[in-house]
């Protein structure tokens, strides 16, 4: 099966444009565009070289090592892997978490959400949003933001730092800690640590509210462009709590179609394969997940902030819930279907994370000493969590000798594979058709990809900008033109 603009009819007659990051961290992404001699777009594809070596690497290892080992998959959202693996292994050792353990994990997760969303919005996306997608590349970077909007930049840095502090106190380290173990956690908070975090949390809540207003303001200012940019109808999937609330740590799977109709609800994620499956395509290493009920052609779906905010019935913290209502009502609901709506939804989630941290810090359980639980041992465990980028599935089989014999991971970026492809095809059609390609125009493609905050942008997180090499190649493979995007913001983030 082929989507519109996925496969050109006579590709050999077209010239090829490749947008390719020259450096990679967790993944490697590349966009190829085929154009005819009139610069009409015929084919657009996002290729991501997904790293699946981990599933092999983990085979034979003792299960208790997995939560610490697996987080090395990612330098930006290691906590998500740490927790998803822990949840799968809780199941394997039959543990029902103590209240203290569960709340500490939730706290760690909220810290992760806060820092990841802050990093993405303030460092990575704000240059596009605040200067314009096609604006001068010399300014359109985090350095430009720091000089033009120093207050905004500062808040972004401090929000991220605060999230990292929450992680440090719960996981033992800001990055790649060991706090969550199968059956619970290895530490709770001391009164001192709690008080340190409490000191600044109200400021974080306030700044997160401001961030929601910033993106709302940008939508108001650029209403038509934002609503239309890379827009496409899509199904969505996320975890929701039993009462329909947003729950980023635990819940059942809910999916809706583009019109908002529920496709499945409260599906036990321990049996995720009953509702979703993965398709392969000859031109991509990354799989294409889809809902079994609709098949690979119509069953693809988006995950992540936009999916979660529109999928849940409410957000269980008041400020974020109010922000959600405003978002859904904005412009007769059109923002909630926009690809750029991801940014708005992401800031609502950041606010929710800040409020969650505040609530948990007021809960005495996080100072508790009852950290570990265990129960009856089984061989198969599935852990699902809503990571910053979307639904993250970890699935393990462990033998009687405590060794992992099989692992399957479906990461957020993989769920969003088709939606990202869809978004860039829309943008190519909207902006590139018939034009001479410039850096500014090609940046529109990146802007669409960045909405999803895919893990391939781990490269971007590390370098401050998605590093790009663009080549125009004619049908015979000759290079017509070559453009290397500058990397001036290189060492300033992280």
């Amino acid at each position: 099966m082929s989507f519109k603009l996925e496969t050109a009819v006579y590709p050999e007659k077209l010239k090829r444009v490749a947008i390719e990051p020259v450096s990679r961290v967790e993944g490697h992404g590349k966009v190829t565009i085929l154009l005819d001699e009139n610069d009409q777009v015929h084919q657009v594809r996002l290729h991501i070289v997904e790293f699946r070596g981990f599933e092999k690497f983990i085979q034979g290892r003792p299960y208790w090592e997995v939560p610490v080992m697996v987080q090395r998959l990612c330098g930006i959202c290691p906590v998500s892997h740490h927790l998803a693996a822990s949840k799968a292994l809780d199941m394997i050792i039959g543990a029902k978490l103590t209240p203290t353990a569960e709340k500490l994990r939730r706290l760690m997760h909220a810290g992760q959400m806060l820092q990841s969303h802050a990093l993405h919005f303030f460092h990575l996306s704000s240059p596009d949003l605040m200067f314009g997608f096609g604006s001068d590349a010399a300014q359109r970077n985090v350095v430009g933001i720091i000089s033009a909007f120093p207050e905004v930049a500062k808040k972004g840095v401090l929000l991220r730092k605060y999230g990292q502090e929450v992680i440090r106190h719960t996981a033992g380290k800001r990055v790649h800690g060991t706090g969550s173990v199968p059956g619970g956690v290895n530490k709770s908070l001391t009164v001192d640590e709690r008080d340190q975090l409490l000191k600044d949390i109200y400021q974080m809540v306030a700044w997160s509210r401001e961030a929601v207003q910033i993106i709302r303001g940008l939508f108001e200012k650029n209403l038509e462009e934002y609503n239309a940019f890379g827009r496409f109808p899509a199904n969505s999937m996320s975890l929701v709590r039993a009462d329909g609330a947003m729950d980023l740590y635990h819940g059942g799977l809910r999916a809706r179609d583009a019109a908002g109709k529920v496709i499945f609800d409260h599906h036990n994620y321990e049996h995720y394969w009953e509702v979703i499956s993965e398709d392969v395509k000859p031109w991509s290493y990354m799989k294409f997940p889809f809902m079994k009920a609709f098949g690979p052609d119509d069953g693809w779906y988006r995950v992540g902030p936009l999916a979660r905010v529109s999928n849940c019935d409410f957000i269980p913290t008041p400020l974020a819930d109010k922000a959600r209502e405003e978002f859904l009502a904005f412009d007769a609901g059109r923002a909630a279907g926009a690809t750029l709506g991801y940014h708005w939804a992401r800031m609502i989630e950041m606010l929710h994370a800040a409020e969650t941290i505040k609530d948990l810090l007021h809960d005495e359980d996080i100072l508790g000493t009852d950290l570990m639980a265990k129960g009856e041992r089984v061989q198969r465990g599935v852990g699902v969590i809503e990571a910053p980028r979307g639904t993250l599935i970890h699935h393990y089989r462990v033998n009687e000798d405590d060794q992992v014999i099989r692992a399957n991971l479906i990461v957020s970026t993989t769920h969003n594979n088709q939606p990202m492809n869809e978004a860039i095809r829309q943008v190519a059609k909207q902006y590139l058709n018939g034009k001479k390609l410039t850096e500014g125009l090609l940046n529109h493609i990146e802007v669409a990809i960045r909405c999803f905050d895919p893990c391939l942008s781990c490269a971007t997180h590390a370098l401050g900008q998605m590093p790009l090499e663009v080549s125009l190649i004619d049908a015979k493979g000759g290079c017509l033109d070559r453009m290397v995007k500058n990397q001036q913001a290189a060492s300033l983030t992280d």
Partner: protein
Amino acid sequence: MSATPDTVTTPTFQLDGEEIPFQPGQTIIQAALAAGKYIPHLCFHPEFKPHGSCKLCLVKISGRPAASCTTVAQAGLSVESEIPEVQDKRRTLVQMLLVEGNHFCPSCEKSGNCMLQALGYELGVMSPHFPQIFPVRPVDASHKEILLDFNRCILCELCVRASNEVDQKNVFALAGRGISKHLIVNSESGRLADTNFSATDKAAQVCPVGVILPKRVGFAIPIGKRKFDLKPISDPGASAGCAEHAEGGA
């Protein structure tokens, strides 16, 4: 010459310019550790006969290199330990150990409690320096209570000695030669489950690195509370008596 009780003075030698008293028969490292002076070591353990294999305890005695765990102290010796020349050699030894096995500290449960890692920090090892050998060493998870992760074995034979001398079971042995030398389990199948090894054996407590590990308790101690988070390995409290051996893999 026989000394009368009131003229007896404890003999001493010099370690990096400091007088170290010793009992006759004590090795240099024993006397030094007893005096609160740290000399790096891996295969030495106060409860076992010296082995002299890792050479981390290298010192210079009157200008000549020697293993301080096998050299008996003598009055008036001049021993140099913390001098750049010796520390450089020790650093190189640690780097060689790191590439001979598969040591992935970030996901190793012994991290923070591991003598090899702690020595790496102590000696300022910033990289493995040598090309990794990546030996293939499958883990033995057959035993109910103990996991053997051979990837990290440094061949110090402490477990061999403990199983022989204390447990009287002879569970472990070294086999092969040179670079292919490796630790084996003495059972027909080669599996730990098919020996009379027990988690309470002395041999289960002595591994300085992360080979012999109690199952299902990895990462129970949070970062910040692990042995070498609290004190560097060179701290007398951390190294004297090799208490680090007692912590198992937790």
